[in-house]
């Protein structure tokens, strides 16, 4: 922990200020987030826990510029990104944010390398292939470069997905239940990979999870209940 102590002084890379997210579905109004204040610093690994329907995914979507908050402000590297246009949001997602999903969401027709390259495919990025192969080697899939997703195990798929999330060297990695579809052991190896990434690349990782072993690896765990952050755990450092 002492290593990470030093990073605590740096400015947050991503921040939510008093964020409210309200869904209005034909008469019924749901407040999925009811005033969230949250910040993550570079190199920090934050676990987000809480019961089903408490707003975890919603919070992650707002952090990932996939969804705009109804009220409040989103700051990315100190810059207000709350009201960006779709095109600017997309550009910012490509530049600064990596996503890892519970279902991996790899493209079945593309090889592992092509899947990792995928975020760069529609732009001019000549050395993307090389970076993709390096990343796959980094996550331990150097011998699976040309395999299609259906030729990979769940853990391997998630590693490909993590490599894909890292292809543009993002500052933030957002993961929604990254170990949800993996067994204990495979999940642990993914979490170890996360931990290494925070140290190697100074990436801030925010992972939504039901899996208690995630918080063992995280620097801190926050708990959402009914759209609010629980104070009693906010300050609490993880139980190592």
């Amino acid at each position: 922990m002492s290593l990470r102590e030093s990073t605590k002084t740096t400015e947050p890379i991503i921040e939510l200020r008093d964020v409210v997210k309200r869904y209005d579905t034909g008469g019924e109004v749901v407040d999925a987030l009811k005033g969230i204040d949250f910040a993550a610093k570079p190199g920090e690994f934050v676990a987000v826990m809480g019961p089903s329907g408490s707003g975890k995914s919603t919070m992650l979507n707002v952090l990932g510029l996939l969804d705009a908050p109804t009220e409040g402000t989103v700051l990315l590297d100190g810059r207000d990104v709350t009201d960006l246009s779709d095109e600017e949001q997309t550009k910012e997602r490509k530049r600064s944010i990596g996503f890892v999903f519970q279902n991996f969401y790899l493209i079945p027709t593309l090889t592992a390398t092509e899947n990792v390259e995928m975020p760069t495919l529609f732009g001019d990025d000549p050395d993307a292939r090389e970076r993709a192969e390096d990343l796959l080697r980094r996550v331990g899939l150097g011998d699976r470069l040309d395999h299609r997703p259906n030729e990979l195990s769940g853990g391997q798929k998630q590693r490909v997905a993590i490599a894909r999330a890292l292809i543009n060297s993002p500052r933030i990695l957002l993961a929604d239940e990254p170990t949800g579809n993996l067994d204990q052991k495979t999940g642990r190896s993914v979490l170890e990979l996360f931990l290494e990434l925070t140290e190697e690349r100074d990436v801030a990782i925010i992972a939504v999870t039901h899996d208690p072993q995630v918080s063992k690896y995280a620097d801190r765990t926050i708990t959402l209940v009914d759209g609010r952050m629980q104070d009693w755990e906010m300050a609490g450092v993880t139980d190592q």
Partner: protein
Amino acid sequence: MSLLDDLSRRFPALLMARRNLSRNQLRSGLAVLGIIIGVFAIASLGMFGTTLRAGATDQLGDIGNEVVVSPAFSEGVTELTERDVTQIERAASGTTVVPVKQRQALVTRGDERTVATLYGMERPGALYTATDGRVPDRLRQGAVVGSGVAERFGLQAGNSITVDEQTYRIVAVLTQQDGISLVDPNNAVIVSPTDFEADGYSQVVVTAETGEAATAAADEIRDTLNGREERVTVFELSSITEGINAFFGILNAFLIGIGSISLLVAGVSILNVMLMSTVERREEIGVLRAVGVQKRDVIRMILLEAALLGFAGGVVGAVLALGAGIALNQFVIDDALATFQPVNLLYLVLAVGFGLITSVLSGLYPAWKAAGERPVDALRK
């Protein structure tokens, strides 16, 4: 394939599009089949029209360049005088004017006899060519026989025949005339007009270089001879050929219209295929958008898929249509190479273009729909 791979490296949308299409090959294949049928229908029906027109024009020969002037029987004029002929020559300058006398005559050779048309023409060489012997510049004595008569009696140049009471030496046998003509020489014997008792001519044949010149000459003759009173009836065949051309133009448009309907159906099937495939790929497209692929790139990718379907179908359809055109031309007008004329190439290009445009248009809605969905919505479980 290596070219495609090379292209795919350079245009990643192409890579994605190709892979997506290969995902459900049967479905893609059926969509392509629709386009093939549509493009084939348009191109082959268009070429079919060209062949029909060529066949018909062939039948008509070059009567389009002919104007036939006859006496205005309805006004009581029964024959054309030397004065009329001079006037016609003056009015239709730059054309060949051949006055013709005509009656039925009994043709005899040995024991055989037949009734044939007897023409009196001073210059039959201006209108016809010979297979045997030579058509003289001025026919003063002897007779020129049409191919039909020659065949019936087994005649050659140098033989002699009797027409009514008079015996003629044959100076030439005419080439068989295939086209329709108002002065048909096949079953006729041509002699000098001085051998006719009547002074007047039954008709005057005016031959121009082109159809337009023929029409102009006809107008001029009408103006000059029918100025005060109706003297002559002018019959021009160029108006008929124009009519025939117009008819085939309409027929072609109609055939292509039918072809277009099948292409429209193909478009609907592509719309359906693209819609299905984008709905199936909803989450994938959501991920693309989440990891930073712009809306317009998603649209481009899906349109490219539709365009690939259209292009594949178009090329195959065009090749098949070309094959059908060659077969048809070989069969109908006995000239396979007639397929390769500019009009037909135009039909092919047009058909492929239509196929491509139909496909891309059909891809527009699915593309717009898929790209318009917010990634959060696409990825919600």
